[in-house]
């Protein structure tokens, strides 16, 4: 699969009076494949928006290379086939939904009213086309934002916190639209704090902390290595205690045992042992790690590594 985005040692350095030179994004190596939904995660100030701005060509990198759809970042040709929905976007409030699409369309030289109408229908705003943006709810503003981002039929969409601050219904609507984009063959790059949302829709993710990529890969691979839960009845206390081991949690009550163990433990050996003692295995449930666990673990590990004396790779972004 071809890469929609590829960066090599992409770095952004700012000068700060108090901190001196600060690498807000530090030697970023990122690969986003075509046709996937890619989640770009990180705590506040991690360098997510700065990375997006560099990829969009809005700000220039201090060093390193980056390619978007096989063209160097900043190439105006790329701007014809990409789009961007910023975090908490503001649109000229006096405009109606239709006027907004006409304005942004005009920047591409698009004047096709039927296309604007079709986009409004796609984001369920056809009935509100003549209302001004000031009359739109947050969810509607986000949907008109998505409509403007589809004006040029983009191959690659950058969405910065697309569901931030929305109610659950608006959340679902936006999520469905993003999944629809992937079905249409578009690549979607999402920067988000909504980890449950990212876990539901993303194919691959990268976790960035203080400008450095800490984890990157397929979601399934990153969340593998979870835990296994075994429940069995007719188990004596002695038998339950025989399963003690590193990172194994044993709960025993009324001859029922619940074993919570790492996935890489030999589950078959445990089951064989239980059966040989005439115990009844009630359930064996593999429990995948949640993205939230991975995120907290990764960021926590990176922070403690930085505090432990190793040089911090980055600094807070304003």
């Amino acid at each position, binding site marked *: 699969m071809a890469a929609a985005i590829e960066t090599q040692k992409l770095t952004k350095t*700012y000068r700060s009076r108090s901190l001196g030179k600060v690498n807000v994004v530090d030697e970023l190596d990122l690969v986003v494949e075509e046709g996937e939904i890619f989640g770009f995660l990180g705590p506040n100030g991690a360098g997510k928006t700065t990375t997006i*701005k560099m990829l*969009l*060509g*809005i*700000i220039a990198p201090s060093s390193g290379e980056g390619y978007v759809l096989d063209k160097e970042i900043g190439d*105006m040709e790329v*701007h*014809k086939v*990409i*789009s*961007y*929905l*910023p*975090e*908490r*976007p*503001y*649109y*000229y409030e*006096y*405009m109606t939904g239709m006027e907004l699409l006409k*304005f*942004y369309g*005009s*920047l*591409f*030289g698009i004047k096709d009213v039927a296309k604007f109408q079709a986009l409004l229908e796609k984001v369920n705003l056809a009935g509100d086309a003549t209302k001004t943006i000031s009359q739109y709810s947050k969810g509607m503003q986000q949907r008109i*934002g998505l409509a*403007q981002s589809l004006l*040029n039929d983009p191959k690659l969409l*950058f969405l910065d916190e697309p569901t931030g601050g929305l109610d659950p219904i608006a959340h679902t609507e936006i999520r469905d639209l993003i999944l629809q984009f992937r079905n249409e063959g578009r690549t979607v790059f999402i920067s988000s704090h909504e980890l449950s949302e990212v876990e539901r829709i993303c194919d691959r993710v990268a976790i960035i902390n203080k400008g450095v990529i800490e984890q990157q890969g397929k979601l399934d691979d990153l969340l593998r290595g979870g835990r296994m839960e075994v429940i069995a009845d007719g188990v004596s206390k002695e038998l339950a205690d025989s399963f003690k081991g590193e990172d194994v949690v044993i709960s025993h009550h009324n001859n029922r045992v619940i074993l919570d163990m790492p996935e890489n433990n030999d589950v078959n050996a445990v089951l064989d042992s239980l059966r040989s003692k005439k115990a009844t295995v009630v359930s064996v449930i593999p429990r995948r790690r949640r993205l939230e666990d991975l995120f907290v673990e990764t960021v926590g590990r990176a922070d403690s590594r930085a505090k432990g004396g190793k040089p911090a790779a980055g600094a807070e972004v304003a």
Partner: protein
Amino acid sequence: MNVILNIATTTVGEAIRRRVLLVILLIGVLLLSIIPALGILSARSETAVTVGTMYAVLRGTSALIAIVLTIYMLPNEIERRTIYTILSKPVQRWQFLLGKYLGAVLALLLMIALMTVFMVALFWVFQKPPAEKVAEVATQPFMYWMEMSLLSAVGMFFSTFIAPLVNFFLTIGMWLVGTVLNPLYDTLAKNGQNGVMKGIAQIVTNVLPNFANYDTKNPIINPGQVIQNGALYKWSTVGYTAMYVGILLLLAIVVFDRREV
């Protein structure tokens, strides 16, 4: 070019809805409406006082609108993130900047035209002047519009690297210096006795925009001034404005292009 025009049109749409600008415009119109009454109190020619005061109000109001309009133009776009949505499209920074400037100039044209129509109507009703006098009164605001185009370029240039509040004082300071002090420096540069002072005056008068150039018809400020060739003067002022605006916008583009947004 279309991109610049589209950004300019949107800028006009936004400018004419900005409450702070509308309040300044309203105050200007209210001040204009009481001026005919002041003429009666004057010992000098009633017409001269009325026209001169109206011009002063129109000019001051326009200057305030031009400054408030331009100093917030770029910072607002960055703060509200609208600039990111626009620059992620096939729009270059210089196109964005020129579009915003053109929008500001067009919005000023609309507002100055509105005040001029109101001013001329008042003049007509209260002074009952001959038609050619009315036409003469109505032409001066065109010069003010050029002046405000230059002032907007100053505000726009500073807004590429200076915060709005500092920019406000800097731009208003430039206007006041260019309006009040520049003619004095100009005289000093031409007739000064001291060589050093003459040199300084020449630098100041050449570097700072001379906003006094635009106020030729005010009968209070320039009671005896007669311009031999009106058309030539106007065209040379247009040229002066175009050159100055061009330089300022070029500098603004260079600074804005390097700025982290």
